[in-house]
């Protein structure tokens, strides 16, 4: 049983986006991530799925340290990522990220060589940079000819290869892939995905793979979590997840995927007609945030937010349809998050 490389415990990240009220004192907050818990095992590809605005990128950015969590914790191999004010360099090199749009994540005024040398100088001083940059390019199936070129001379797929090489430069254990292929055409996508799978085997990497493409997820992830409006509604093994989705949102999601063959059509759950709009994250509905669109809505759904329950070993669902604990834990809402938030608001 492999151990956990990264674990999230009740992670919350709220943003204050303005003030309201008579004297402009009441903060308007966006609960981008609101109590997310899951863990990633060593060497696995953990898929995080959700539509835009569901908070999946906020989870990623918090993990690499672009944001500090409002409350909750993220542990990397049993080490809290946010104990120190500034994350130690030795820890920073362990977790790397590949962003969605390779066109805007590479500095257009640096050559590929300069782009690859920077992380080497920072994290691995003393290494032979030229030799190492060539080795990195080779790993992502690019030739040394690319070293003096600028990003604009590369195609989208090649740019993404360079971004992957950059992430590999620090010899990380965990790479966050934030929609690595959604800016690329399908004919290019396969090559990137297969490269990532090969690198994972070769260097025993763990991936947090973020995407909204469920068909792609089916082919790369070992476990999957579905996010909706800042919360996770279902976690399961990928195969299991696609065979028997439990949460009504997940079922709606899977039945809405446009597919290209009858064989796949047969794998989709019975058609659940999608209805309603995704609410704004500023104004999340009370109770279960999905209740307004849910075909199985009960009275309780609009008042009480369900908790995660393990329906089958390793398959967790957050829905009132699945045996909620008798006594809801006393006041789940008022945790440290509100306190921290008030403090932040007061400061600025």
């Amino acid at each position, binding site marked *: 049983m492999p151990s956990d490389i990264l674990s999230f415990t009740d992670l919350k990240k709220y943003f204050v986006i303005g003030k309201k009220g008579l004297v402009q004192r009441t903060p308007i907050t966006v609960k981008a991530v609101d109590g997310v818990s899951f863990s990633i095992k060593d060497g696995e590809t953990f898929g995080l799925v959700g539509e835009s605005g569901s908070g999946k990128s906020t989870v990623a950015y918090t993990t690499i340290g672009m944001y500090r969590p409002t409350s909750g914790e993220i542990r990397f191999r049993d080490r809290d990522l946010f104990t120190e004010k500034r994350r130690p360099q030795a820890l920073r090199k362990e977790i790397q990220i590949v962003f969605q749009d390779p066109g805007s994540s590479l500095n257009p005024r640096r050559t590929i060589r300069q782009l690859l040398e920077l992380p080497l100088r920072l994290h691995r001083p003393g290494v032979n940079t030229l030799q190492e940059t060539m080795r990195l390019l080779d790993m992502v199936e690019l030739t040394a000819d690319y070293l003096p070129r600028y990003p604009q001379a590369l195609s989208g797929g090649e740019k993404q290869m360079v971004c992957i090489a950059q992430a590999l430069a620090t010899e990380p254990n965990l790479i966050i892939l934030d929609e690595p292929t959604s800016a690329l055409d399908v004919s290019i996508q396969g090559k990137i995905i297969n490269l990532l799978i090969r690198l994972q085997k070769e260097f025993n990497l763990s991936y947090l793979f973020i995407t909204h493409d469920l068909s792609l997820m089916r*082919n790369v992830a070992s476990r999957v979590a579905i996010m909706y409006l800042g919360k996770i509604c279902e976690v399961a093994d990928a195969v299991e997840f696609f065979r028997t989705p439990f949460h009504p949102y997940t079922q709606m999601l899977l039945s*809405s995927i*446009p597919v290209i063959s009858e064989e796949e059509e047969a794998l989709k759950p019975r058609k659940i007609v999608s209805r309603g709009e995704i609410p704004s994250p500023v104004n999340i509905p009370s109770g279960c945030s999905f209740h307004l669109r849910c075909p199985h809505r009960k009275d309780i759904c609009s008042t009480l937010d369900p908790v995660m329950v393990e329906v089958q070993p390793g398959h967790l669902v957050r829905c009132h349809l699945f045996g909620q604990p008798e006594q809801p834990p006393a006041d789940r809402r008022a945790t440290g998050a509100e306190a921290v938030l008030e403090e932040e608001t007061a400061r600025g």
Partner: protein
Amino acid sequence: MNETPILDIKNLSVHFQVYGGTLKVLDGINMVVKRGQKVGLVGETGCGKTTSMRATLRTLPMPPALIPGGEIRFEGQDVLKMNAAQLRRVRGRGIAMVFQDPTAALNPVFTVGQQIEAVVRYSTDGRLSRREIRERAIAPLKEVALPDPERMLDTYPVQLSGGMRQRVCIAMALVANPRLLIADEPGTSLDVTIQDQILRLLHNLVEEKGLSVIVITHTLGVVRELTDRVYVMYAGNMVEVAATPELFRQPFHPYTRGLMAAVPRLSGGGVSDGIPGRIPAYMQPPPGCRFHPRCPQAMEICRQEKPAFYDVGSDHQVACFLYRDGGQPGGSDAQ
């Protein structure tokens, strides 16, 4: 059968005059859309899908664009030869377009009502009273099933969700009761559950109002769910045309086959490596078949001559020399 098609594009070429040369983007494309038909136009980024549709609406900036040849017949009349007054009657009233990104297509500083009313005024040549204009602006909002259309007129685009913005864009296109609707990537920037709603809406509009629709997309799944007939484009050429079920049952062109194989399947089994290489530069496109540098089955003739369309089924044509004498796909490329 002899009815005039609603849109008939014949041998259309579009070039762009840029610094350092000419980009030969569209290279003589043909396309026919019949009344009440739902046609898909598929291809990768930069293959000329949107360019061909913008040429149809005559909204390409000229220069740099120039159209060296071809005709675009809308209900029998050549759009390329129309004067400004005739164009006004085609745009909006004849053909309407729903653009790709609903957020970018709506002006953030005007209310939804102001923007739709502007379209109403344009399409009625300013003959209506204010009250009539407002009434005509509400009607399409009802058709796209937006809640509370009265109130919707006074909201700004930022107050709406992505799905609602897309509906507003569709409503705007419906204002003047067009006969042909061109939808550029409908719903693809949205969550799949919302995309599903938009596709269903388009489907219902076609059925109820007898519209013809062209859907531009690079998502094959969307084409399969929505259309009756598909045109596959590669680098400014049509490469395959077929009835939708026929194409998904048996794609013939090596490009279409590569594209289909590259789509990740819900049934699992890994992802194929895709198609090697990249779309050619339009400054000096490859001679002969533009796909030959990436084609696993390229032959000598492919480098020299541009293939014509060959019949491979009752409603299925392929522009590929492999099928000069009919025949089935397969053989060496089957892996």
